[in-house]
């Protein structure tokens, strides 16, 4: 439970303010917790300037963690090539491994991939464990999970990180569950704590309104999935030397009731939302479906992708794959143009990482302007055609 040291509490109210569950109130200049509302999330503990708050665990198991050593990166192949996130993870993992003074191992699972192992070494790995099996040629969640968990039990790494991609987020939670360890989803930052040596895993919480740093100090391995595009890959260095180890998994681990009957790689039409440098987003301010073409036209002139708010995709103007925000896609392009977007929090958290945010909206008090680099107060239906025309001219397009 949450303990409040009344002697230390100065009644400053910081904890009351930061509590997202309304569980703390200041009564007679002292913090008081409503245990029914408190979810023990721990946010307040760190906020208290006096160190008056603590969360007590009673009866948790103490395990010996010292025999777990080394950092692992789970690599991912997409269309026969490594996903960029694999190299991004290796870049960060190199730092983590150096900080811990342990080797960095990349795990390569699949079929016919052995000749790709060198590439992982050139991007920072000291060692590559190749699990090459025809039965891993399709992505089968439970088979992949069992193989990785089996390897981890055998080799005992202290850290395992993987991409927070559709496949990573599908099977890594299974691995963590088999290993009975903690897993932090969708991290945007990883560091080693200098004093404790623990992995500090930072991720957005409460829809991005709060950044929380998570640790897993009672179990091993420490596991995290990391968002693509947030970490920096190392330049390839083909002179790097490393060891390549083959591992043949016990065949029963590969047994699964899931059968992949067809695997389809979809050609992307126009630049993908998360890959492009420019996103032009349609909001309710467009008023009518016909006006969506104003946004599409600007996206074309800028060679960018079309995004949409939930209101627009819910209304069926455009497919859900275009939705930017908490329940859609998170984007961080160089330029984000919000057209008639009011800026509801669930939208903002999906695009706040954009470098330049341009907001066009009739209502000068719209929350979108709070995070905009440049704001145009005006009617999108009037502004967009002018903007498209001038940008096309600028870029020598029709």
């Amino acid at each position: 439970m949450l303990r409040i040291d009344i002697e230390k509490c100065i009644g400053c109210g910081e904890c009351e303010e930061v509590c997202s569950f309304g569980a703390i109130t200041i009564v007679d200049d002292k913090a008081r917790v409503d245990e029914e509302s408190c979810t023990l999330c721990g946010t307040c503990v760190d906020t208290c300037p006096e160190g008056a708050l603590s969360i007590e665990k009673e009866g948790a198991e103490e395990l010996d963690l010292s025999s777990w050593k080394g950092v692992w990166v789970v690599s991912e192949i997409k269309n026969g090539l490594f996903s960029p996130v694999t190299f991004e993870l290796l870049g960060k993992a190199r730092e983590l491994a150096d900080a811990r003074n342990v080797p960095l191992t990349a795990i390569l699972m699949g079929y016919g991939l052995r000749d790709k192992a060198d590439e992982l070494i050139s991007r920072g790995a000291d060692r590559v464990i190749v699990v090459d099996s025809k039965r891993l040629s399709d992505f089968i969640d439970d088979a992949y999970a069992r193989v990785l968990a089996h390897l981890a039990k055998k080799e005992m790494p202290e850290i395992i990180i993987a991409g927070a991609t559709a496949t990573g987020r599908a099977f890594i939670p299974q691995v963590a569950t088999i290993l009975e360890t903690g897993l932090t989803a969708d991290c945007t930052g990883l560091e080693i704590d200098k004093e404790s040596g623990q992995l500090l895993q930072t991720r957005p919480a409460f829809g991005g309104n709060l950044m929380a740093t998570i640790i897993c100090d009672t179990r091993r391995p420490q596991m995290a999935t990391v968002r693509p595009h947030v970490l920096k890959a190392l330049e390839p260095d083909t002179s790097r030397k490393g060891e390549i180890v083959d591992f043949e998994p016990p065949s029963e681990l590969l047994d699964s009731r899931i059968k992949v009957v067809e695997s389809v790689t979809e050609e992307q039409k126009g630049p993908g939302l998360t890959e492009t440098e420019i996103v032009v987003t349609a909001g309710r301010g467009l008023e009518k479906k016909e006006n969506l073409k104003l946004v599409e036209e600007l996206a074309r002139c800028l060679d960018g992708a079309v995004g949409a708010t939930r209101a627009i995709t819910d209304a069926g103007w455009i497919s859900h794959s275009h939705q930017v925000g908490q329940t859609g896609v998170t984007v961080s392009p160089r330029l984000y143009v919000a057209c008639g977007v009011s800026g509801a929090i669930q939208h903002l958290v999906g695009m706040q990482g954009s470098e330049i945010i341009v907001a066009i909206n009739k209502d000068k008090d719209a929350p979108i302007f709070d995070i905009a680099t440049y704001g145009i107060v005006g009617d999108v239906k009037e502004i967009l055609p002018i903007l498209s025309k001038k940008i096309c001219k600028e870029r020598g397009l029709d």
Partner: protein
Amino acid sequence: MPEDKVMNIVVCIKQVPDAESVKWDHKTGTLIRDGVKSVINPFDYHAIEAALTLKDELGAKVTAVTMGPPQAEEAIREAMSMGVDEGVVVSDRAFAGSDTLATTYTLSRAIKRLGDVHAVFCGKQAIDGDTAQVGPGLAVRLGIPCVTYVSEMEVINGGKGLRLKRLKEDGFDMVEVDFPVLVTTLSTLNTPRVPSLKAKMKAKRAKIPVWTAGDIGADKKRIGLNGSPTKVHSTYIPKFEAKREFLEGSPEEQVDALIKRLKEAGVI
């Protein structure tokens, strides 16, 4: 699974703060809590609909399970008003502070108490935690395969299994799997049905059982804070560092000013 038994379908739902009603004051960096409502996690409606679709096609008993405070029974009633047959609230102070590992353990204990299940549906993730970890973790606990991010579903093998379209980063897979299976649903899978008046009345009158840690025979070491290896080390409020320059003048002038700045920044 014995043939003569009624098909058992479980749908896991979570009550979350309504994103629409949560407002954030970016100037002071604080959450405006007034008037925040609790709703069913938006993705979970699609899990409910998927369960009901299967029920319509194959005949089944659908049970909604939620873990949370006692008032989460509202979520169960809402699911029942859509056509879910029964519901359980798994609630105990001892569950507080659960991370996804403790949550999957707790949910699995509750689901095992319901008997043999043929299918479990979960939304792809909850919008408050956004981890997407509970579905896959729960499947491991239940010892059944998991298919995530499903956008199409079809009954195959004479009602013994499912063909599912599962989204991947660069496309999709069509997979086939026999029951029992756990499926996590995307919003593109279906359109959740509107509650019927009859079901609403039934839901209103229903007695919703509350199961405690004791009821599900949970090991104290594996629930709540004790069973949660991850913990919050520190937090900070991200700063929205916006330049907030309003471009003035006529629409033409505003556009010209914008283009000038975008050119300077080198984005066009």
